[in-house]
């Protein structure tokens, strides 16, 4: 009985926004900075005359992590040694468990606690927090102290985080687009001599699924899980979600016209194809309840849909311990959601926003600092194999290493070291990927849910009830899509679409 109080409270305060896939867009010519102690070498020149004018300040850095690394204090000390010389500041690194991230940060924000740097993302409540005034405005700060940021992140992408003309988060410089496609089990591809270049669209995969189904009874031809299913093409991949909920832009249209993505013929087409595959037995029955990669990871599945980027197959192969190859089916597409996938923000409660920005800016240009923060202390956690490649230090392995961080969460990823098993041209590939991506005509638009928050709340429950099963093909779209849209209408979806259109038009007229 009492437990429900706790859960209720947790439930009530958790927030996250389930939006477009995270991608990244690289356009950096980052100026490498040598890790010397003198301020001159770093491109982060503070307009203030000299460091001696800066009072010592402790920057509280809050970010999500799986666990507090054993050697956190060690790395923090090294960073502080360096930072004290550079900007007379120290950092206090505070990793917070993923599972408690929303609760803890919301409480910190609600209670007005003083902290400085916080990781933000459109999936972690970025626009809600902006609307509630949780973050500090960054335009001026970037102008004055963000030299590295401006040099490494394309101006067009910085615009992408703006809400009402003001930036509230600095995107991490990495891949900024997503291209939809499939990951295929490499050994099966080789076994059946599958020519992946013949797969140009979803339907092309079908003959291969049939092949696998016929010849490999134990293998799931098409693994669907964690909201990666055929329906995604129509409900996420080929549209700009415009900030979530319902109401999207057709990628292929040049009009700024907001549509209900679940009413489009394309959605119907994809759902029907998915259902066909399900009836043919290609799809795993637990598609909507499975919470990890299960069968795919142990090699008992042939294909899985995935948003791709250069080197995704290498990454997933390593993560899964199973070799996969990627087949891109859709051209890369960049939406606001891709840009706001992971950012660094400054809390409104900071006492020295300039210093916080200086630190953030260093992460975009200072190679020594960023790699120290990402990988640990050289010699203790990693050793350099070449100027740009590192490996684990002597006696250290991925499991035993005392320090870990997520490089995709910070700064300018293009200046970070690579591991020996990664493509040496990884960053070049990212830059090209970002440059080539089709940019949404609504790039930079941020949707304010406040005027329609009641409808968004009601629609959220409808989406939960219908979307997954239809996307995955587990039900007959002929009836279900109609029911789905009926329920959406009853929940007020038209009002949301109209409001989005109104806001979009207003945003466009201000461009």
């Amino acid at each position, binding site marked *: 009985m009492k437990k429900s109080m706790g859960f209720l409270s947790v439930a009530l305060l958790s927030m996250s926004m389930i939006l477009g896939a995270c991608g990244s867009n690289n356009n950096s010519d980052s100026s490498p900075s040598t890790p010397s102690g003198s301020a001159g070498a770093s491109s982060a020149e503070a307009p203030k005359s000299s460091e001696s004018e800066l009072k010592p300040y402790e920057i509280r850095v809050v970010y999500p992590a*799986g666990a507090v690394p054993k050697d956190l204090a060690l790395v923090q000390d090294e960073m502080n040694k360096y930072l004290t010389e550079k900007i007379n500041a120290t950092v206090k690194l505070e990793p917070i*468990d993923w599972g408690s991230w929303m609760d803890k940060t919301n409480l910190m924000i609600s209670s007005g606690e003083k902290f400085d740097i916080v990781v933000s993302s459109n999936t972690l409540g970025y626009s809600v927090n902006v609307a509630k005034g949780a973050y500090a405005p960054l335009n001026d700060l970037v102008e004055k102290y963000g030299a590295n940021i401006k040099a490494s992140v394309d101006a067009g992408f910085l615009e992408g985080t703006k809400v009402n003309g003001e930036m509230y988060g600095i995107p991490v410089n990495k891949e900024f687009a997503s291209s939809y496609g499939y990951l295929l089990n490499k050994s099966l591809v080789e076994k059946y001599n599958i020519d992946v270049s013949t797969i140009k669209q979803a339907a092309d995969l079908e003959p291969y699924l049939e092949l696998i189904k016929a010849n490999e009874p134990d293998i799931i031809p098409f693994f669907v899980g964690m909201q990666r299913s055929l329906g995604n093409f129509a409900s996420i991949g080929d549209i700009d979600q415009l900030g979530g909920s319902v109401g999207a832009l057709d990628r292929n249209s040049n009009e700024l016209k907001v549509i209900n993505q679940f009413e489009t013929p394309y959605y119907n087409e994809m759902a029907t194809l998915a259902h066909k595959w399900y009836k043919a037995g290609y799809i795993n029955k637990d598609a909507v309840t499975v919470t990890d990669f299960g069968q795919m990871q142990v090699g008992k599945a042939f294909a899985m849909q995935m948003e791709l980027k250069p080197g995704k197959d290498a990454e997933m192969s390593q993560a899964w311990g199973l070799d996969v190859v990627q087949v891109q089916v859709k051209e890369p597409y960049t939406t606001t959601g891709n840009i706001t*996938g992971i950012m660094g923000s400054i809390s409104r409660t900071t006492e020295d926003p300039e210093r916080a920005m200086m630190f953030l800016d260093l992460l975009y240009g200072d190679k020594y600092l960023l790699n120290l923060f990402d990988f640990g202390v050289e010699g203790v956690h990693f050793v350099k194999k070449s100027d740009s490649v590192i490996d684990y230090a002597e006696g250290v392995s991925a499991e035993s290493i005392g320090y870990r961080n997520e490089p995709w969460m910070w700064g300018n990823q293009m200046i970070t070291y690579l591991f020996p098993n990664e493509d040496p041209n990884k960053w070049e590939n990212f830059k090209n990927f970002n440059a080539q991506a089709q940019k949404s005509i609504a790039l930079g638009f941020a949707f304010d849910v406040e005027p329609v928050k009641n409808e968004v709340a009601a629609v959220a429950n409808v989406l939960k009830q219908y979307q997954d099963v239809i996307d995955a093909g587990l039900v007959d779209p002929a009836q279900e899509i109609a029911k789905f849209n009926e329920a959406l209408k009853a929940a007020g979806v038209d009002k949301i679409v109209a409001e989005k259109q109104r806001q979009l038009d207003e945003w466009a007229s201000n461009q």
Partner: protein
Amino acid sequence: MDKSQAISQPHRGSARAKERLYELAVNLAFILLCLVFLAPIILIVIVSFSDERSVVLNGYSYFPDKFSLEAYKFILREPDSMLKSYGVTITTTIIGALTGLLLTALLAYPLSRRDFKARNVVAFYVFFTMLFNGGLVPWYIFYAKYVGIGDTFFALIVPNLLLTGFHVMIMRTFFVNTIPVSILESAEIDGAGEWRIFFQIVLPLSLPVLATIGLFATLGYWNDWFNSLIFINKPDLFSLQYLMTKLLLNIQFLAMNTQNSNMMELLANMPKETVRMAMAIIGAGPIVLAYPFFQRYLIQGLTIGAVKG
């Protein structure tokens, strides 16, 4: 008396047999019930000792293809944090449960006294807290900001767990219905003060309810992960349950956020099913050893010798 004894004599044999049969039947019913209750738990234990790959391939099974100690080895890789959290939890549980039990009894007893004029008002005051709360944010702000207990032992003991209306109301009911007013009155006549009455008469007569609430309070502290989640940042102070549960919470959160590519990838590296089950066992297991301590008072009847007459 004699007549009935005389009558029951020749039937005593069959009466005994009937009793034994009855006892057997009840025992059998319980064994069946316990098997049903235990079945899922046995499954958890078996899965925690299974080989991960076979679990993924075949699902949970009572007869896995392969057994493995990997899950436990993984968890015990860093015994430090687990030992510390065991220490933290045991300490907070003992201190919290004892203090809480005392506070609860002290609050409940006067409420059971008919001559305590304010008892209905106070009872309402207590009960109201079970229904209304100001929400997580004000509660957190009050404790973390104004009282300043973030990251302390205090935060694991005091907020929410020390005293709950539920326990107080139950205890009050027991006091009302098991302590005969005559005993209280005769003690008062003998000149005993309220405190003496409370400690020397009321409490000893109330062992079953004290054991019940004591058990509940103990379980409440042992199972708590919420206070750690909200108030504690230092891993040294994490409660055992939080340590074991946070993996599940992390996985659930990331599974909810699969739209974000990078977060989704993290899921691939999360410890798997067998580890999650092993954590459930490690978290829940030890407290079972505390049961017998409470059961002593729960199971036996009372000889209310002092009451008769």
